[in-house]
């Protein structure tokens, strides 16, 4: 296969291959261009479907305590990622999260990972942009 033809085929493959559905709508609600790191105290843990949540009391730059809501995997995925309900994360724990902020500017984010006080780090959610339909639509755009 010539280099030019290989290039055409590669482009075609990249256009037509898309990530498998993992979770819906993370990419709609949260902005992959707005990464954020937060450290705070856990105030609430919700093992809910289709996405889990927890709340974090975070001191802002003026010293005020602000509550952030973090969104992540569904419950089954958390179990397979190494989480244990009521054991891995408890109210009162101090943790650091990395994630991406909500598009509406509210104090909520999609958390990719959580680092605990002992240094242990676990995934809490999928990569940025998950569930927003991939880079190209399923139909050809004229």
């Amino acid at each position, binding site marked *: 296969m010539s280099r030019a033809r290989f290039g055409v085929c590669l482009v075609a*493959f990249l256009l*037509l*291959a*898309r*990530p*498998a*559905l*993992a*979770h*819906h*709508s993370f*990419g*709609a*609600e949260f902005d992959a261009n707005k990464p954020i790191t937060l450290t705070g105290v856990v105030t609430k843990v*919700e093992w*809910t*479907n*289709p*996405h889990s*949540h927890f709340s974090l009391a975070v001191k802002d730059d003026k010293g005020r305590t602000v509550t952030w809501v973090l969104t992540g*995997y*569904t*419950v*089954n*995925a958390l*179990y*397979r*990622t*190494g989480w244990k309900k009521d054991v891995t994360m408890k109210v009162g724990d101090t943790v650091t999260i*990395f994630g991406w902020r909500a*598009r*509406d500017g509210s104090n909520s984010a999609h958390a*990719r*990972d959580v680092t605990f006080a002992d240094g242990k*780090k*676990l*995934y809490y*959610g*999928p*990569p940025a942009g*998950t*569930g*927003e*339909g*991939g880079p190209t*639509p*399923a*139909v*050809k*755009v004229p």
Partner: protein
Amino acid sequence: MTRLALASIIAIAIGCSACAPPASTPQDAKASAPADGVPRTADGKPDLTGVWQGGNGRKGSWEEANSGLGVGGTGADPAAPANPASQQVITEPAPYKPELAARVLESFNKRGIDDPAGLCLPLGVPRLALVGLFPIQIVQTPTQVVILHEYMSVFRVIPLNAEHRTDVGPTYMGDSVARWEGDTLVVDVTGFNDKGWLSGTGTFHSDALHVVERYTRVNKDQIDWEITMEDPNVLTKPWTVKTTLMLREGTRLQEYVCAENNVETAHYEKILKEGVPYRR
């Protein structure tokens, strides 16, 4: 006495030395282990029995295949990128009728916020098995194949060499019957409702949808899964997607109750109503 030694003695006792299992699971105890790695049932068919993961082409156990990279990242290294193998190969763009393609594009531009998955409903065929974070389990017998989906706790009971049933209405997962074509299991699915997506954001369909799946176990670890979708109400011609199911030995299915405490539906409706700048 080890379980393996015990199983070997039992295999010899029943006069089937080829049945001596290499491992200790019931699945392996049932299957032989030919050179191509494809286990076969007593009637000579490829044995599809096992726990499988769609949407992730990496070989290995669930932990091996999803650690570090992960489909959406179920693993030990949060810094790692998304799994590049977590892709399905679409042979062509979905061939929607020109006047309907805009509806698919609109969902894409909304970043899939109108995804039926947010409503905790079964996602249909083939989309349900493409949810990479959730395994499926295939149970094969000489007369039927059962597919258990952890996601939404959905099952498919697929009789072999049977006619489609006529005593049911349209459903999310449709009505499936199967037959063997050589070493490929061909599943014919009709009787869908019009509430799901095919594969990809916004790929709506009508109740005229007809799906033909072809499952070919090519080695111990992999089933090639080809899906052809026909819907004369929305598509101009059949649409084919090629992907894989990967064996995840040691993985066991869990209960999944999506509807309990589902806060997402109201949340997404609120986002849609209030016009948060989610659009592309």
